[in-house]
């Protein structure tokens, strides 16, 4: 369990049309019970103690927006944060700057640099097929994760803003990245300690994002393509930035379109084509004591098959007046029932078994009312 409650005060002072200052204070209180284990039917009926941890984060921030020249505007800011968990206090300074170079009315180049701190960690049993990710708070043993982020983007709109195009190159260097190597066997027997298998390391995310947007007309939508690397360096597993992160998706192509047929009817569709996620591929097996033992290749060293999926939807606007908007939406997920492989496991007959969770069409019907 992870939850938070917070307060934010934001103020803005405009000195001139070219110069404004934004400042404020942000407070968050976090509650976290990282692991509540409950098991039935094994050696014991086991329920772990419910231990609620809490922490506080207080931030002061200020940002200056300035357009000194027609060819340059910038937005510079600083966030000062403090974090307290059981009297262990961390401080951080997170500067950031965005510099915008307008080339003309329809084109600009944007540079960005920033440091970002995060006061909770997300860890997961990386090889488990189940969604075993969990959150835990920064404490004296596990320092805040932080990242240096740098990017350059080019924006253009043409003609008459009917279309827009964005290309972005980015690089992020991450520190204090965590991952779990816990043994679920311990969990099953009630001896699981979520902290016991945590390993720490660094990360590098880099790549390019391309986005073509159609903003006007009966047919609207966008086409996006991302080529990205999310590499991790866990010295306990392998030296260097050689390990793809669990959610590394090298290529990702998304096409989204909607057609406004008339005032009441709109249809849409989304097609996704992406690289499979990385996993540790079984290499070979052998038999000991009547049991099949698998030996695996490099950690996250192989990728699952290509992922692709088509979703379609239809919207009917039943009512649109001064009271509000009432509509019905019918969506079909995975229209052509593709078996997208979630993981590949070795089976007892010495073959590789691809496992797909949703290999059928999933319809959904919703009624919405906006007022």
């Amino acid at each position, binding site marked *: 369990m992870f939850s938070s409650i917070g307060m934010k005060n934001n103020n803005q002072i405009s000195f001139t049309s070219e110069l404004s200052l934004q400042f404020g204070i942000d407070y968050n209180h976090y509650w976290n019970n990282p692991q509540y284990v409950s098991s039935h039917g094994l050696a014991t009926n086991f329920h772990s103690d419910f231990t609620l941890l809490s922490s506080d984060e207080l931030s002061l921030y200020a940002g200056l927006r300035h357009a000194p020249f027609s060819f340059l505007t910038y937005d510079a800011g600083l966030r000062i944060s403090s974090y307290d968990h059981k009297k262990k206090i961390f401080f951080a300074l997170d500067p950031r700057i965005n510099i915008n170079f307008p080339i003309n009315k329809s084109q600009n180049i944007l540079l960005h640099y920033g440091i970002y701190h995060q006061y909770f960690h997300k860890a997961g049993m990386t090889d*488990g097929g189940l969604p075993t990710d969990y959150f835990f708070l920064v404490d004296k043993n596990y320092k805040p994760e932080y990242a240096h982020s740098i990017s350059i983007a080019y924006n253009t709109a043409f003609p008459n803003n009917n279309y827009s195009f964005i290309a972005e190159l980015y690089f992020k260097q991450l520190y204090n990245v965590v991952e779990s190597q816990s*043994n679920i066997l311990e969990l099953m027997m009630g001896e699981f300690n979520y902290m016991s298998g945590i390993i720490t390391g660094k990360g590098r995310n880099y790549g390019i994002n391309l986005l073509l947007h159609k903003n006007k007309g009966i047919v609207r939508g966008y086409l996006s393509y991302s080529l990205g690397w999310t590499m991790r360096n866990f010295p306990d597993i392998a030296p260097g930035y050689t390990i793809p992160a669990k959610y590394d998706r090298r290529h990702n192509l998304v096409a989204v379109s909607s057609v406004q047929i008339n005032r009441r009817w709109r249809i849409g569709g989304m097609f996704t084509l992406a690289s499979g996620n990385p996993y540790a591929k079984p*290499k070979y097996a052998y038999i000991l004591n*009547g049991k099949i033992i698998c030996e695996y290749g490099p950690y996250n060293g192989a990728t699952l098959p290509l992922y692709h999926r088509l979703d379609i939807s239809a919207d009917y606007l039943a009512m649109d007046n001064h009271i509000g908007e009432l509509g019905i939406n019918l969506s079909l997920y995975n229209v052509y029932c593709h078996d997208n492989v979630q993981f590949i496991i070795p089976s007892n007959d010495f073959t590789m078994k691809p496992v797909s969770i949703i290999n059928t069409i999933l319809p959904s019907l919703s009624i919405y009312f906006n007022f």
Partner: protein
Amino acid sequence: MFLLLFTGCEPKEDIAEPELVVEGWITSGGHPLVMLHKSISFNESFESVASLIEDKLVPFGKVTIDDGTQKVILTGRLDTNYIPPYRYSSVEIIGEEGKTYSLTAEYENIILTATTTIPPRAYFDSIQIEQKGENTDAMEMRAFISDAANSPKYYVLFYRALGTIQYYNTFLGVFDNSGAKEGILSIPIYYSVASGTIGQDKPVLFFKKGMDLEFMLTRVDKASYDFWKTFSAISVSSGSAFLPIHGKIISNVSGGKGYWCGYGSSSYIVKLRNDTTLIFDNDNTKTD
């Protein structure tokens, strides 16, 4: 030219180089028993699992045991009591407590070596047997071992159905004496939850009422303990999509996979009928 290009682009499946795998032990008062096979690549094609296992047998290996005073070459023969069904043994060597045994296995330019020692025998004082409830045939078992815990001792508990030959490790049956209280070590006896056990479709934690069993309690050296401890954890998770696979088996074998273990062992026949406590006179314990 085009044909060459297309041939060049055809994806190649990696077939892992086969590893030589040894499974071997020597008990106090028993003869050495060794099995050899080659690892199985997941990309190999085969007609049936039985034919695949048969194909991986190593019937022409050379297995030598050195007990410090003599070197004996073991002889091999088919034995369907084991998987894989081929074993090497010799009546010329009988396991003795405190003695060290070195194994060398040679096959197709691969040489495996391993060394083990047989520690003093381990004994059960008693085993408590209790039916888990009226509506179940699951039998809960707990064993007690006298252990002053004045020095580290390592144990592995095996079981087999009475009348069968191959022993299997019990679930969580690999333990040391760090948990001993007032000179008594108390351990639960579980069946198996391993998903990858050949011939066992689903995991079962408790032995069942009506079963006739034979338990072999063994004392092992630290290297053997490390092997069985990691093996039992990996064998539960191996092959399951839902369990992590980070761990590696700590093997005492150089040049290949597997284990070569000396067991200071005692065997006990247990027939699961009613709630009872079996108290053992260890002078008359059935030994293997």
